């Protein structure tokens, strides 16, 4: 992984190649609006915060064909928000496809500009009523954070009251709305699925929370398969359908470790048992097995069964789409309507299997490897 760039104190974003370029000229779609006005206030506050915190810390993420540049105001948020994506850290030239400023008030002493919306304006998924047509806004009631993204300038801002307010689930899978907007393109979307692979070919693991995605992904990683994620990946159907890793972490319900003995003794400080789930740093446990991309050869739908042997059986493409699409589209703010067509194209062109997880799951890696192999041969 490339050594992170630490910019000189000052307004560090100006030290980055992206920031040296002049901002895009206003166009019909980037005229000042209420959303853009507040976005500009948040960006200005970020610059104050970076000055006060000794500069900004720059990290680049390489995700498939995209490079996302993160500018942290001071070091306080780097570990909470970067650790899960550290395996995507990238060196190299070329402008980022999106850049994001991240800051907090507690460590920088800079107050957030008063929100221009009222609490009653917060609607489903943290979307803010009256915003979103130009600049997307999400308020996170769970930890009081604000995320904004301007799809025209491809710049984003993330603010949180303080580093200690970043909850376990955000540390495990940070910046999900921002990444969903920054990485989206026709035929390219975040999907609610894990992915595991072997030699660059793999399967998507789709299912709602509690279906067993994490268990299957960790069992496979423990057995030597490549790991791309347990809950969210970037899916591209532009050419060869490909899954790209987002997070090198996994989340397990308490007690779930007993089913994945390969990681049970290696949780270390990851074993936070914060609230409901354990957060495992898969990249640290299996540094060679967390991979950035794999061609998707099949879709697997894990299901927890209370009895019977663990087995895989073919299901229809419609069932796969019904399992994959609703949770992908309904969990993320500002649903990307065209993502349904991308997911339909994926499941129409490759087999889908239900994976019934019985009490004995020791054969899961072998089953998954067989499904990958069958997909490669098809």
């Amino acid at each position, binding site marked *: 992984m490339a050594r992170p760039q630490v910019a000189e104190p000052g307004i560090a974003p100006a030290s980055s190649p992206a920031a040296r370029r002049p901002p895009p000229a206003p166009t019909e779609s980037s005229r000042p609006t209420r959303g853009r006005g507040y976005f500009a206030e948040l960006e200005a506050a970020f610059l104050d915060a970076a000055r006060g915190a000794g500069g900004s810390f720059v990290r680049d993420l390489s995700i498939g064909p995209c490079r996302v540049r993160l500018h942290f105001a001071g070091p306080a948020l780097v570990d909470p928000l970067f650790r899960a994506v550290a395996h995507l850290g990238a060196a190299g030239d070329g402008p980022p496809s999106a850049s994001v400023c991240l800051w907090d008030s507690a460590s920088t002493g800079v107050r*957030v500009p*008063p*929100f221009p919306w*009222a*609490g*009653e304006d*917060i*609607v*489903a*998924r943290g979307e803010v009523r009256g915003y979103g047509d130009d600049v997307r806004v999400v308020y996170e*009631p769970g930890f*009081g954070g*604000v995320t904004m993204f301007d799809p025209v300038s491809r710049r984003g801002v993330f603010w949180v009251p303080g580093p200690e307010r970043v909850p376990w689930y955000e540390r495990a899978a940070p910046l999900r709305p921002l990444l969903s907007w920054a990485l989206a393109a026709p035929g390219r979307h975040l999907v609610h699925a894990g992915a595991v692979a072997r030699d660059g070919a793999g399967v998507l693991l789709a299912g*709602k929370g509690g279906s067993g995605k994490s268990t299957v992904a960790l069992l496979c990683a423990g057995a030597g398969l490549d790991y791309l994620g347990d809950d969210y990946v970037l899916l591209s159907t532009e050419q060869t359908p490909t899954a790209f890793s987002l997070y090198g972490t996994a989340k397990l319900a308490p007690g779930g470790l007993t089913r994945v003995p390969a990681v049970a003794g290696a949780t270390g400080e990851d074993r936070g048992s914060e609230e409901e789930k354990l957060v495992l740093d898969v990249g640290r446990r299996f540094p060679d097995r967390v991979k950035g991309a794999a061609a998707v050869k099949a879709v697997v739908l894990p299901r927890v069964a209370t009895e019977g042997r663990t087995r895989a059986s073919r299901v*229809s*493409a*419609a069932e796969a*789409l*019904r399992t994959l*699409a*609703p*949770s992908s*589209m*309904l*969990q993320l703010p500002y*649903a990307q*309507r065209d993502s*349904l*067509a991308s*997911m*339909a194209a994926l*499941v*129409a062109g490759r087999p889908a299997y239900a994976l019934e997880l019985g009490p004995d799951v020791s054969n899961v890696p072998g089953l998954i490897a067989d499904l990958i192999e069958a997909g490669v041969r098809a």
Partner: protein
Amino acid sequence: MASAEAFRIDSRKVVHETIDGEVILIHLETGNYYSLDGGGAEIWELVQRHGSAGGVVEELGRRHGDTDRRLAVTVRGLLHELAVEGLLEVEDPPVEDRNGETVPDESPDGAGTFPRPVLTRYTDMQDFLLVDPIHEVADSGWPDRK
């Protein structure tokens, strides 16, 4: 069937794809999602094209050689069900609805040769759309919470 009866899909709220003869529909505002199976996929295809129950019935009759009056009842029943779920917008409520007409007791299940449409609703994703507005704001004002 009232000729003024017209249906359309509000694409801001509803997304759909047809695969393997089954329509998957997601209502982005309610969080419900649906499977439309059996003859439902064909009705869904035709209502997008014709926008009216009458147009759907007419073309189905031509395609399947089905002139059974229960076909119209089947179509109207499904379109009404889709409208109730918010998957279709009714631009002009059917006269029959205003008059309180009810579907005949005889089941439309066996209507001619046309396969019975089956709409299945799934509600297990609604939790993602539950809203907990922030009402309590500190004296210093929003965004400081009490």
